[in-house]
């Protein structure tokens, strides 16, 4: 009996040692999976998507999924960069911000590929339909609303493309401000706070028009009438939103999350559409290179603004 006790104790010690051994990630991921998605609880589509991801990922990982709700871009970025969450959905600009903060501790793993093969959406400059503005040239000296400093289609791309077109976004408009989100940007335009704003559009292309994006989603909820707005400039395509993970989590769990999400469009096509994904699309694997242009645009924009601030502050 003594020998048995000794053997059991030896086994226990070995077990505790083996936990630090050759398979560090095999069994460590037993706690909750923490996920963050940006969006307002006032938007039924956001709530539905969050609930669906929570249920689905809970089932496939066998772990309770805790959702960290964030009302703005920065909330998701900081939760991911600080390691408070394991997985998040982020647009390119948000990922570029997280990448600048923690580098390869975060990585994009999946983005949406549509039926036509594309993996991007567009940025649209919209004005009120009853306004006199027909092109960006008409907006000189007028006010412009951006979505958020971290928004790709509502800030980074438009500013880069304006500069490419010879427009200095710092001086061209009488006033610029951040609305805080795509929905808020559309509402601000509708309420007359801005003369124009850039928002994301998708579900189409410049040739055939668009059917999804803030204006269309809000119209389907009865919040606005899409006919009250006019698109005067379309930019893109912009690399679509991605699922981003913390790379310091167990690789096995990253693989399971990636595999489960990649399978979703095929195993549950109705749920895929129900959570707001384009019908007939799928999640396709990506890595940091997918956002190389967005990262470069963000760096260039920050450098331009710093240069502008230095020039303003320097003695003449």
């Amino acid at each position, binding site marked *: *009996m003594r*020998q*048995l006790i000794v*053997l*059991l104790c*030896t*086994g*226990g010690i*070995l*077990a505790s040692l*083996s936990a630090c*051994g*050759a*398979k560090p990630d*095999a069994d460590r991921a037993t706690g909750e999976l923490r996920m963050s998605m940006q969006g307002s609880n006032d938007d039924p589509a956001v709530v539905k998507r969050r609930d669906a991801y929570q249920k689905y990922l809970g089932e*496939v*990982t*066998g772990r309770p999924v805790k959702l960290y709700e964030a009302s703005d871009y920065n909330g998701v970025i900081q939760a991911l960069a600080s390691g408070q969450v394991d997985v998040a959905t982020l647009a390119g600009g948000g990922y570029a911000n997280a990448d600048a903060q923690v580098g390869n501790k975060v990585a994009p*793993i999946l983005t949406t*590929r*549509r*039926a*036509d*093969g594309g993996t991007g959406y567009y940025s649209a400059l919209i004005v009120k339909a009853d306004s006199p503005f027909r092109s960006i040239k008409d907006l000189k000296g007028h006010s412009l609303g951006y979505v958020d400093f971290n928004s790709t289609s509502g800030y980074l791309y438009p500013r880069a493309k304006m500069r490419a077109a010879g427009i200095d976004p710092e001086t061209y408009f009488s006033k610029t401000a951040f609305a805080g989100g795509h929905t808020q940007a559309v509402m601000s335009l509708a309420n007359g706070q801005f003369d124009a704003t850039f928002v994301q559009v998708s*579900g*189409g292309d410049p040739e*055939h028009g668009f*059917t999804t994006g803030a204006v*269309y989603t809000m*119209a*389907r*909820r*009865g919040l606005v*009438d*899409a006919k009250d707005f006019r698109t005067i400039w379309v930019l893109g395509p912009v690399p679509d939103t991605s699922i981003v993970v913390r790379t310091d989590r167990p690789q*096995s769990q*990253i*693989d*399971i*999350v*990636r*595999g*489960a999400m*990649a*399978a979703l*469009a*095929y*195993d549950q*096509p109705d749920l895929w*559409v129900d959570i707001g994904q*384009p*019908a*007939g*699309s*799928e*999640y*396709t*694997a*990506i*890595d940091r290179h997918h956002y190389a242009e967005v990262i470069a645009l963000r760096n260039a924009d920050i450098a331009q603004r710093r240069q502008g601030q230095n020039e303003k502050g320097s003695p003449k």
Partner: protein
Amino acid sequence: MRRLLALIGLMVFVPGLVAAAPFRLASQANVTSPCRPLTPDAPAGQRALHKLLAQRLGVDVLDCPVAGARGAADALVAGQVDMGLLDPASYGSVSDKVRAILTLRPKNGLIRSQIVTAVRASGSFKSLGDVRGHRLLFVSAAPYDRDQPRKALADQGAGPSFFSSETVASSADDALARLRKQDGDVVVMNADAWQRSCRGAKPQDQPCGDLRIIWNGRPRAERAFAVRQDMPAQLRYRIIGIFVAMHLEAPDAFKAASAFAPASENFDASEAGALSPSRTIP
């Protein structure tokens, strides 16, 4: 007895000492033979594939030569391999025990998107078989609007000769307008185009309420990696997660895994019945 108890104690307390079951990967060969570790003289790509899978799955990986897709299907059903490459013919006889999990997307090619086939709701057509000899409308000549829907219909038994005519419209809205005007009898398009045209702009909108979907589905895969249906879901998703990113993370391993279709871009996940040879129209 004491020794037995001691052994049990060790197994309970030291799970790492208990060898996990190896992952048995079928490989194409002339004859089926037992699984074994890859020999050192195996091609570099195959060694890279086995190394990647061993690292990521945390178990040994064995090479299991099988005689073609039929051999892979038989070995899957017999529980002799964990994953193998099947085609529709070999899948047909094992579809009750096996499912597809991964297909290959051709270089610069399309994903296996869902296809929607619709008719006027006021008409008598209720199924794909009912539209034999009638006029088909495509929404454009783009590959995702014409070639892929055409293949999906042909997979179901509705090949080019099935319809009396084929017309290519200028857009999805144009195709639907022609259908409503009875300038065509059935329209086929990818689900993305259908959603764009039929989701409406206001809460109560039902722009396609006057139409009826008579078939929707995906084009059949030519080949797919398949596993047993009773494979634990987490292992299945883990395998999918490794393979869909393989072209980015381990290009040599990807080259070996996709050697059966060399001009491929990446692995995509697939639905269970991606290889199903069954047809809507006999």
